[in-house]
């Protein structure tokens, strides 16, 4: 479980249908519905506990599987440079 939740970069534009545009790189991406839902929850400042609790209650998935896919999803966001780089102060 992450100590701190990742932060989505501020200037990233995300549409209601899951279309993502990064003005810095000019790249665009598409999210599937759950990807979009997770991004919204992250943006709303939810903790991982709250986020996973909410989604586990809503979807047919166990904690272990969810954890695995969540980390994989965040890894992809990081790979595409959509997440603010944490600097340990």
């Amino acid at each position, binding site marked *: 479980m992450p100590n701190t939740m990742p932060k989505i970069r501020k200037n990233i534009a995300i549409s209601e249908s899951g279309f993502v545009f990064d003005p810095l790189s000019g790249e665009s*991406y*598409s999210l*599937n519905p*759950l*990807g979009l839902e*997770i991004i919204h929850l992250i943006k709303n400042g939810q903790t991982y506990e709250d986020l996973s609790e909410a989604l586990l*209650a*809503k979807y047919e998935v166990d904690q272990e599987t969810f954890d695995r896919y969540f980390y994989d999803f965040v890894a992809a966001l990081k*790979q*595409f440079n959509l997440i603010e780089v944490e600097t340990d102060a």
Partner: protein
Amino acid sequence: MEKLPFERPTIQKISAGIPSKHGISRKLEPLSHIDGLSIKSLINEYGSPLFILSESSIRKTYKEAYRAFSSRYPNVQFAWSYKTNYLNAVCKAFHQEGVWAEVVSGFEYDKAAANGVPGESIIFNGPNKSKEDLRKAIQNSSLIHIDHFDELYEIIHLSREMDERPKVAIRINMDVGVYPKWDRFGFNFENGEAWDALNRIKASKNLDLIGLHTHIGTYMMTTEAYKIAASKLAQLAVSLEKKHGHVIQYIDIGGGFASKNTVRGAYYPGTDTTPSFDDFAEAITSALMSSEIKPDHLPMLILETGRALIDDAGYLAGTVLANKRLSDGRRATIIDTGVNLLFTAFWYEHDIRPIEPISDQMEDTTIYGPLCMNIDVIRGNVMFPLLKKGDHYVVRRVGAYNTTQWMQFINLRPQIVMLDMKGKAHLVRKGETLDTINSQEITPEHLQNFNL
């Protein structure tokens, strides 16, 4: 409240301006059954990975090929290329269909003989025939296809020594307009070597010259090359009749027909580009029929096609071992089949798919085998659904060359089953065990014991 089905969260980069260049659907339909039998149940019973062969596919493909040629030419004979797949069950299925054996070594010759193929129905090809092999082939009246002059003289010598008349043909290489030119086997047509060899055979008086053979290449995507090859062999047949009054009994056009697999780097998938048996048959038979060969002297047409007859009948099913992300963010899926079992992964973009519907989400994936070796890549780049550890996959069209060229390396070689015409599974080759490997080894006495 009922929970919603879970689909993993994904984000995909949109590559504007580079749409799928063929407009081909990227969705991979799962393949759950072969000949009505569930792949999952086969894996549960026989282990993973598992080679699965379909007898009905073998017979159906053969009948299709035979019909294509026999409906265009009066006298057609197929010979099963042992090196393509010499599992006895496979060979015997072909022999039951009336197919002869085509072998390229003493080992393969013995295998065909042990399978019960009569000597006169074995074609002995290749550059490697020992004196003993030749002696055996001469004794059994097999059809010896001579590869080089050293072999020709050896056979002439043996014919005197044994007081027999060996039945021979020569293998001929030629320019058929394809690159690379195959000139390492047999005698060359263009430089007159083949004609020279034929004259020496006639001059020896001890050999029965019964055929002319060529094999122009492998994985041929053009039928035109076969037309040229058949015409050149026909020219030689005509010259033989003109000069020596000798009528040959058969023309063997070899094999090399492409299967429907997609070759690495090919622009279009093999299912769209591979010529059909009818296309190959039309090119070859029309060249022979329109040649100068007299109609009542039309020779038997022999075909040694291997790959195109067996590739579709073979499947390789197995299990996903793990998933990971590579340094550039791409997904990597590790499966339990390595390139040691799936040798053809080096030149095909194999059709690999899940055996049950997993997810509509596809991701750019590299599929690795289980070997601790960097070269162990089954598919370099494929849009593939995210299979979890323990999920099953199946690779299609693996019937040719894999179970002959496979290597025991790091892992043991798995079981092979064949599904009969009624869809019942039969174990046709047992999986290897540690004993299989160790039984071949002899450890010197002084290396038997150690203390650690």
